[in-house]
């Protein structure tokens, strides 16, 4: 199909004509390409590379979640991360993409692109756009495993994975981003939030909050890990077993975010650099702020909090990475860094909801902050003009994601069951669910 592509000699011989000849279904003749054709190809290459970087966020999440939880559950959490992406990919191909970007009313997409199989005779950017959106869906999906770690039945988690990438994420995704893929121009509906002018460039709300509110629903439905709260209801610490691994995960996520935010341009031009700068500044500011906030609050610079701070800054800048000033990006990151520390403590100690890795605080709370925060620092529009729609969007996502999440998890709870039994939890999910050990031979105290 693309055999010709590979013959370098031809290219050398004929000045990349081969490259040109090789065009999948692109619009122009097989003679000299125009600059616009090449720009299209550049957009494709850039978007593809960005998609790969976003894919790489998957191990980032897996390591953060494994590192922040106990050794006896490390295999299990990794399997969940592996499977939510794998199952999600198939669900996305089968239903998700069609629902999010297909024909349909402003409320539900679908139709034309369902079963993206036939989509395989699309062209150029289409396929790249498909994989780019696929890894985005996978990101929303994998956020949830962290908040539900160390106590969720493996099989129920597998079922959940089908619904997030197949239904929940794409439906709301269509409301907010339906317009991305042609939208009006191609006679598709844009989605009503898109038409209202809601701003969320790379998905603080559309991706991160979506995952986070579902995660919140999961954590509430499950209840806390055995031993997390004392009889007096006092919160107990359950230290993560491998902080270096978690830190690597955070760095990988930071790296992947350079695909997530700048990649959302799906265009190879100067905007990439601008967005990379805002993204990086906010992440750095988030790390510093979280470290300082933890220092003030707990007397010592907590490592896991500082790592969460990076993610807080990244999530928060995601909505406005394209439109806020550099100074604004720093402030957004600083606020996010403080917010995540406050939120983690509040959720743990006041709400007494057990979120082992702080997924709700990072992706939910900071996702909301980023979506609203951009109104303060928008380089062109005024706060007043923007805030209204932004608040509506945030609310719509909360109601949708948290609501569907509660329904889904409670159905699972009532049917196949959502939580492992106490014995299995004490023994560890790795042995109980998989019959495997994460660190065979290592001596590990397993009394908490």
């Amino acid at each position, binding site marked *: 199909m693309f055999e010709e592509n590979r013959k370098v000699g031809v290219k050398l011989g004929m000045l990349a004509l081969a490259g040109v000849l090789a065009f999948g279904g692109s619009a122009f003749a097989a003679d000299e390409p125009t600059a616009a054709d090449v720009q299209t190809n550049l957009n494709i290459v850039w978007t593809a590379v960005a998609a790969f970087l976003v894919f790489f966020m998957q191990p980032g999440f897996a390591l953060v979640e494994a590192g922040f939880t106990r050794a006896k559950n490390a295999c299990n959490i990794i399997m969940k991360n592996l499977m939510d992406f794998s199952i999600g990919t198939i669900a996305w191909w089968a239903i998700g993409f069609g629902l999010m970007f297909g024909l349909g009313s402003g409320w539900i997409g679908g139709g034309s692109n369902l079963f993206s199989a036939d989509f395989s005779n699309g062209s150029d950017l289409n396929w790249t756009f498909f994989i780019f959106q696929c890894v985005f869906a996978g990101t929303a999906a994998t956020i949830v495993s962290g908040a539900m770690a160390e106590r969720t039945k493996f099989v129920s988690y597998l079922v959940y994975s089908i619904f997030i990438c197949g239904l929940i994420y794409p439906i709301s995704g269509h409301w907010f981003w339906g317009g991305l893929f042609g939208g009006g121009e191609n006679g598709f509906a844009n989605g009503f939030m898109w038409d209202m002018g809601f701003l969320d460039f790379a998905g603080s709300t559309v991706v991160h909050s979506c995952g986070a509110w579902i995660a919140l629903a999961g954590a509430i439905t499950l209840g806390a890990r055995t031993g997390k709260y004392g009889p007096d209801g006092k919160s107990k610490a359950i230290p993560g077993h491998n902080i270096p691994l978690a830190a690597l995960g955070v760095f990988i996520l930071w790296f992947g975010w350079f695909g997530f935010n700048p990649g959302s341009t799906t265009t190879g031009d100067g905007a990439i650099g601008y967005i990379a700068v805002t993204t990086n500044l906010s992440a750095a500011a988030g790390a510093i702020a979280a470290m300082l906030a933890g220092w003030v609050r707990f007397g010592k610079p907590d490592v896991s909090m500082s790592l969460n701070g990076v993610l807080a800054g990244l999530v928060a800048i995601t909505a406005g990475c394209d439109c806020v000033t550099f100074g604004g990006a720093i402030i957004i990151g600083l606020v996010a860094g403080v917010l995540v520390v406050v939120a983690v403590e509040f959720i743990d100690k006041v709400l007494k909801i057990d979120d082992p890795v702080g997924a709700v605080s990072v992706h939910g709370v900071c996702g909301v902050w980023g979506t609203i925060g951009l109104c303060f620092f928008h380089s062109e529009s005024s706060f007043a003009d923007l805030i209204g729609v932004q608040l509506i969007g945030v609310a719509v996502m909360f109601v949708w994601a948290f609501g569907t999440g509660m329904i889904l998890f409670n159905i699972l709870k009532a049917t196949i069951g959502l939580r492992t039994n106490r014995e299995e939890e*004490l*023994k560890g999910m790795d*042995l109980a669910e998989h*019959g*495997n*050990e994460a660190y*065979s031979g290592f*001596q*590990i*105290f*397993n*009394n*908490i």
Partner: protein
Amino acid sequence: MKLITAYIQPERLNDVKQKLYAADVMKMSITNALGCGQQGGYHESYRGVDIEVNLIKKIRLEIAVNAAFVEKTISAIVEGARTGNIGDGKIFVTNLEECVRIRTGEKGEEAIG
């Protein structure tokens, strides 16, 4: 003085500690251990090959006590560790001839606590 050595299920450690504290036994030393006993062991598998794990994770407690405390200590451990299932563990008592507190050099009974 007696030296009490006990093997218990890891997940019982916290309860055992509570019971010991309640019995005024404040000092102890613990180590990780693997135990092999009546408890058949369980089956783990790796890449399709079955592993008959008959060395099961246990926690070893070592507690030096004065004669008066022996019974209290034993029953505290039993209370904290018993689930009624095979694998609950064992308690061993040996005679302790001497005890020294490194910090002060104290010897015998008063060095224990």
